[in-house]
């Protein structure tokens, strides 16, 4: 539709902007934060299925002792790709999907501050993922672990770790750009009255995560550049013989890698902090404490990295200092746990699927957190380093924590994004299967680790007595796979049902529920004016003197803003309301600019001409971007 009425300054055909905002091709040029959020979500979920399949292959290999199902070399590739995929291509972009979709809605904005830059971030992330995965077909996947420890990552003769370095550099550019964009959005695009301390906790966690990204990614970027130079140009950054130091890689990696842990888990903490109050029908207990704990975690997160390196031999002073800072960071995390419990306490609890996943998150994250504290004790850590105990720990934090939280968010916001509810029955099946499968898979790894089973080995002899728990763990992995299958069935069948388009199906508290489901392109007919924390709730309910919550006469759930009824009077500009609201036009250039990166990356590996081609494409993309009409 979008017939264009005014074309004031249009320099030439080449720089015309596309107009379509619906249809298949519009997804390639969209700058709408909601569409980009959906793209992030679908892409990340696709990688989740791939990364999960890699995990299943690993578990098949380890199910019984002395198996030869996978060659050791393939096994190395699989556990490396599983780690890279789940960290960089699943949890980070799935969180980015929620941030993209929700941050503008939650602060009462019409889009992010730089919509085209947002599209650029998505495409660069997608190309980074495809680039890394293309290594399977172009000479072998990365095989040095997701942490890529030097000097192994430098001297390994296969091509995989070069793909690793370049792919993660591209993903890093995508994340840094996105971090700046979203941070400025939160700081600068808030609706009138939306002061910092009226922002939902999810928005706060979003802001903290973006700042963590902006300040930790540059460190790994330099590490990756040094690795790449060592591999491609014969430099000596990590070459001991020439005076270099492989420990430098570990510092650079973990100085990024530990903030990264909070980058992965804070979004889930934000999601849970939104869901618990809705299903307990109580405000979040100690909002300020939750916010400040999140900020504290962000700061202290930069001071604990060497607890990943206790066994390296940094010396007792360094080890003690990092042991102490690691124990300190458990405090703000613990504060949050108690705030969530306080929110549930005496609440009018509804155990819908998002609530189940949220409670699952808290329980599993506590287990992961406690095993984490055991690593802070240096002598204990010496025993645990490079054993399955570590594998158990970080899966409790990143799967039991991040993934459970993200699933809670998927069930919670699905009706907002697609205008349809997911089935509660399938949801419950999904939750319980995942909870049981998860604990079957990763619980026994604590025992295996303490029995001394090392990480990253392709097989183990039957005589070690590790067979039983490994079999339990492998069966659990398939239970998780079935639970994900249940989710997929739930997701697909939800589209068979008619759209309900209910604005506020959960009787929720934050601004995104005040607009229609799914929201119109411009999000809000009128930018809301915010008067308090949980503004929507206070528009719907008031408290009597006795402390009882009663509906406000004019309010009530589902009553708010249904845009479909609201066709404006003037000029047949469209059959929807909001036609006077100018939204930024779609653009080809974010896609073009991002497309240059993987081409330049292939050039670095296979031949210099492609580097030039890639850089020219990216540069042309940026120039077209800067010069096309109606700059953002």
């Amino acid at each position, binding site marked *: 539709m979008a017939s264009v009425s005014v074309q004031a300054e249009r320099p030439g055909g080449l720089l015309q902007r596309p107009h379509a905002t619906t249809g298949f091709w519009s997804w390639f040029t969209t700058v709408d934060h909601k569409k980009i959020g959906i793209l992030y979500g679908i892409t990340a979920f696709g990688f989740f299925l791939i990364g999960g399949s890699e995990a299943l292959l690993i578990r098949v290999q380890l199910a019984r002792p002395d198996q030869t199902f996978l060659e050791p070399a393939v096994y190395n590739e699989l556990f490396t790709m599983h780690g890279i995929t789940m960290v960089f291509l699943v949890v980070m972009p799935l969180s980015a999907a929620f941030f993209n979709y929700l941050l503008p809605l939650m602060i009462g904005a019409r889009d992010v501050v730089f919509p085209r830059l947002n599209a650029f971030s998505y495409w660069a992330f997608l190309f980074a993922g495809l680039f890394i995965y293309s290594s399977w077909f172009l000479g072998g996947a990365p095989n040095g672990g997701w942490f890529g420890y030097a000097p192994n990552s430098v001297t390994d003769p296969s091509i995989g770790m070069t793909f690793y370095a370049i792919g993660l550099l591209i993903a890093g550019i995508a994340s840094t750009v996105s971090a700046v964009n979203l941070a400025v959005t939160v700081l*600068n695009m808030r609706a009138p009255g939306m002061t910092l301390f009226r922002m939902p906790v999810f928005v706060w966690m979003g802001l903290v995560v973006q700042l963590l990204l902006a300040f930790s990614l540059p460190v790994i970027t330099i590490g990756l550049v040094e690795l790449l130079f060592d591999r491609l140009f014969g430099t000596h950054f990590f070459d001991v013989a020439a005076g270099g130091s492989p420990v430098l890689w570990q510092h650079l990696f973990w100085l990024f890698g530990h903030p990264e842990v909070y980058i992965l888990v804070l979004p889930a903490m934000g999601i849970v902090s939104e869901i618990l109050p809705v299903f307990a029908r109580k405000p979040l207990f100690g909002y300020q404490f939750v916010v400040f704990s999140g900020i504290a975690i962000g700061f202290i997160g930069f001071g604990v990295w060497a607890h990943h390196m206790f066994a390296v031999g940094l010396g007792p002073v360094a080890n003690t200092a990092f042991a102490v800072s690691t124990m300190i960071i458990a405090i703000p995390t613990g504060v949050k746990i108690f705030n969530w419990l306080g929110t549930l306490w005496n609440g009018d609890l509804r155990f819908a699927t998002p609530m189940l996943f949220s409670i699952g998150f808290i329980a599993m994250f506590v287990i992961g957190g406690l095993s984490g504290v055991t690593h802070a004790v240096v002598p204990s850590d010496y025993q645990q380093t490079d054993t399955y105990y570590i594998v158990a720990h970080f899966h409790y934090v990143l799967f039991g924590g991040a993934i459970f939280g993200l699933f809670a968010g998927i069930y919670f916001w699905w009706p907002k994004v697609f205008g349809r509810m997911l089935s509660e029955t399938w949801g419950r099946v999904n939750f319980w299967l995942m909870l049981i499968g998860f604990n079957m898979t990763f619980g026994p790894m604590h025992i295996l680790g303490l029995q001394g089973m090392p990480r990253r080995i392709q097989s183990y002899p039957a005589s070690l007595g590790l067979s039983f728990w490994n079999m339990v763990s492998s069966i659990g992995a398939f239970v998780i796979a079935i639970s994900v299958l249940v989710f997929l069935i739930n997701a697909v069948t939800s589209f068979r049902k008619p759209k309900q388009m209910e604005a506020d199906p959960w009787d929720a508290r934050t601004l995104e529920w005040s607009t229609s489901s799914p929201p119109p392109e411009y999000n809000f007919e009128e930018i809301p004016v915010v008067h308090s924390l949980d503004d929507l709730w206070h528009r719907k309910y008031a408290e009597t003197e006795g402390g009882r919550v009663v509906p406000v006469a004019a309010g009530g759930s589902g009553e708010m803003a249904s845009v479909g009824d609201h066709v404006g009077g003037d000029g047949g500009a469209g059959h929807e309301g909001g036609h006077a609201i100018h*939204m930024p036009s779609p653009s080809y250039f974010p896609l073009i600019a991002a497309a240059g990166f993987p081409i330049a990356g292939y050039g670095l590996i296979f031949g210099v001409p492609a580097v030039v081609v890639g850089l020219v494409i990216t540069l042309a993309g940026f120039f077209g971007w800067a010069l096309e009409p109606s700059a953002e």
Partner: protein
Amino acid sequence: MASLEHSVAPPVSDHAATSTGLPSLKLAMWLFLASDCLLFGALISTYVLYRGASTTGPYPSDVFDIPFTSVSSFVLLASSLTMVLALAAIQRGDVGRSRVWLLATALLGMAFLGGQVYEFTSFVREGLTLKTNVFGTSFYVLTGFHGTHVAVGVLMLLTLFTLSFAGKITQDSAMTVELVGLYWHFVDIVWIVIFTVVYLIPTNPGPGS
């Protein structure tokens, strides 16, 4: 749909005053530069860590020509002045003067880059390459990374210079010039740190000498 009249639509970010009162582009540039600080921080740390760790020569004292690099450093720092003058001119609405200063800034930047190319070639001639030792490795990557930043800045300056002839750089777009200026000053300040740490603070000769 809602994208009607899109070519004259004001940017989303200009619909209202921003929440912090700071222009969004400027805030974004500051955040980017803060992030960029850590890129240089990691590289400078690498250089400092490997100071004196080379097992073979040439060592820094064998190749550095401090007077020459001082002059090229002065050229780069002088370009900050011309950048300030370019911004001041465009804020007054004096496009012609601004154009001259933009070009001057770009030329000074290119002179610095020329100096770096000359320096690199003479070092290579004296036997110091990327592969020679960890000094060569960490020196070339750090200063080359900075040189790349300068080159990107020169590209942006020349773009502004060219656009000014198309009437695209006016008093209203002073913000664009200011943003490029922020980047340019940042690159200059980083060079002060690099020049001090790499060139001026003497390094112990390696264990081999």
